[in-house]
């Protein structure tokens, strides 16, 4: 912000290549490190002071939010004091450095560390080779979990995308009611998986045969002449009752995105096909679906990634009991219930390996967009 100090000619040019590197690292570290230390100090201080919680919150907000901004400004001003030759080579790191430091600390380092831990035993002391992976891929518990994950991937993705697409096409034709209908179907997306699980636990609620059923599903089922069922312990169908919850939350999302894509299909194209006498079904498969292919692929991968890591629904509904285990829930249990960090890490790595194709695809598209 300040105008430059007089250039110190020969010394700077000699200095710059040597000092720029360490200076960049230093500058990158300033913001995250000082923010972190200040916040930590504030927390410890306030914890000991037994301060009012709201006050703690407000102070923390000011330091956390305002402090980060202030630090960027201060660091930038500090860099402005540097000799001219060095200054502009260091400055970009004021901007990008903090992000790189945080990404390293919260993603890059932990990923490498988790891969390493997955080859160690439960308490991360001895090297056990591929034992944890043998557990993750061949033990009878995990075979059930892997089977369930496959069920989730197929049914959630299949239903969400096809149902979302069909509703998107239909909703396009109902005129003024469209926004309202869309809102109602989309609303579950705003609800947490925990909230959704409570909602559906109530739907699946079970009472003994003489008592009136308070769960919607059992009420309908008994009205049709069936005996009330404990849906959540009914193996293996209970998996599908859990899967239904995720379909319920995500269908609206797929519908909204696909609906936007369908509106982008040129009207002339549809008209032309209609004049040619194509039926609506043929127009759907022959014109609309090919036209929105890109969006269909994006939404499918998005849903696949979300489903792969499904945790909350299983955790809240059954905690993985009654053969409803999935990888992410087992990973959590290995970590907290059994304290087996080797197995837990190996399960995380399994999830990572499953998303690597998407990662490669993303990086490739980036490379292409750069050309």
């Amino acid at each position: 912000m300040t105008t430059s100090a007089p250039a110190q000619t020969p010394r700077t040019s000699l200095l710059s290549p040597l000092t720029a590197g360490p200076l960049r690292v230093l500058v990158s570290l300033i913001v995250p490190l000082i923010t972190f230390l200040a916040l930590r100090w504030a927390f410890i201080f306030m914890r000991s002071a037994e301060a009012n919680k709201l006050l703690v919150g407000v102070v923390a907000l000011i330091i956390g939010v305002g402090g980060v901004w202030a630090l960027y400004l201060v660091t930038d001003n500090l860099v402005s004091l540097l000799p001219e030759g060095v200054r502009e080579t260091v400055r970009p790191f004021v901007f990008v450095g903090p992000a790189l430091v945080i990404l390293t600390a919260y993603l890059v380092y932990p990923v490498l560390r988790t891969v390493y831990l997955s080859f160690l035993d439960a308490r991360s002391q001895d090297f056990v080779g591929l034992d944890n992976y043998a557990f993750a891929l061949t033990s009878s518990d995990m075979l059930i979990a892997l089977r369930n994950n496959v069920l989730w991937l197929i049914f959630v993705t299949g239903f969400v995308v096809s149902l979302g697409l069909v509703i998107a096409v239909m909703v396009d034709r109902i005129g003024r009611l469209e926004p309202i209908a869309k809102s109602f179907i989309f609303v579950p997306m705003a609800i947490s998986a925990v909230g959704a699980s409570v909602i559906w636990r109530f739907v699946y609620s079970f009472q003994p045969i003489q008592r009136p059923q308070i769960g919607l599903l059992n009420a309908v089922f008994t009205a049709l002449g069936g005996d009330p069922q404990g849906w959540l312990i009914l193996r293996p169908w209970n998996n599908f009752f859990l899967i239904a919850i995720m379909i319920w939350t995500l269908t609206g999302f797929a519908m909204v995105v696909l609906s936007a894509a369908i509106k982008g299909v040129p009207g002339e194209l549809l008209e032309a096909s209609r004049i040619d006498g194509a039926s609506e079904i043929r127009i759907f498969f022959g014109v609309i679906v090919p036209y929105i292919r890109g969006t269909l692929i994006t939404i499918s991968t998005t849903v696949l990634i979300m489903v792969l890591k499904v945790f909350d629904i299983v955790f809240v509904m059954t905690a993985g009991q009654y053969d409803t285990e999935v990888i992410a829930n087992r990973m959590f249990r290995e970590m907290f219930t059994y304290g087996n960090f080797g197995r837990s890490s190996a399960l995380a790595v399994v999830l990572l390996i499953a998303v690597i194709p998407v990662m490669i695809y993303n990086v490739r598209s980036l490379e292409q967009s750069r050309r």
Partner: protein
Amino acid sequence: MNVGYQTARSASNDQLRKLLAGAPVRIVVLLIAFVWTLPSAGLLVSSFRPPDDITNTGWWTVLSHPFESSVWTLQNYDQVLNAHGLANALLNSVLVTVPSVVIPITIAAFAAYAFAWLEFPGRRFFFTVVVGLMVVPLQMSLIPLLRLYTQMDLNGTFLGVWLAHTGFGLPLAVFLLFGYISTLPGEIIESARVDGASPLTTFTRLVLPLSVPVIASFAIFQFLWVWNDLLVALVFLGTKEEVAVVTARLAALVGRRGEQWQVLTAGAFVGMAVPLFVFFSLQRYFVRGLTAGSVKG
């Protein structure tokens, strides 16, 4: 679903035909919307019923006599907010969410600007790394971070969760903001530089105000993500009443009071109220944010 689009003789005839042909589609869509709403409606209705009524009769029975005052009560909400500590959990959720949205946006905006408009060695490489990190499952980070936090006495503190959400949200934030900021017209940025504006001034006075739409979209996405998150909150904060957020408390209530529907129904709606409010008031940004943010790992 066969919609007759044959050219009709007269305009009114055509309209009538369209209306009739559209009717089945309309009915099917409304039926789907109805089915989609029914589970939440059941929970909402039940949350206002006395505990005994909830467990003895189906919630739909109340619809036959909805105007008797004895069938409605607010005591469930009073109970969950006070006796079960959800009021406190709500406050915790706010304290966790606001910084977990603002801090990553700030850091990502600075970084996205540098990636888009400043020259530095490793620019392409670092950005490729950011894109690669976008879909990394956050499960990969939990164990090492938990250990690090234990060493630094950060477990169970808001600070730990803020930074965790910052780290996990950052790749997507940088990517989205870069996508927008890099398409700002180069002439504006260049002319600011020629006029002697420093990169920082250009950023705060020019780039940031112009980027409000994308920031709003990401903010809503990140808000929902953090507010509705259970995993990160469980791992780094836990279920102790002083620090637990709404989702964690609710999950604990399901575990311990799985059949006390008066607690669960009201509790679930306490947790949903804020995101539903955001949903209905900012629907357009909300959709844009969700669409944009759907690739997160």
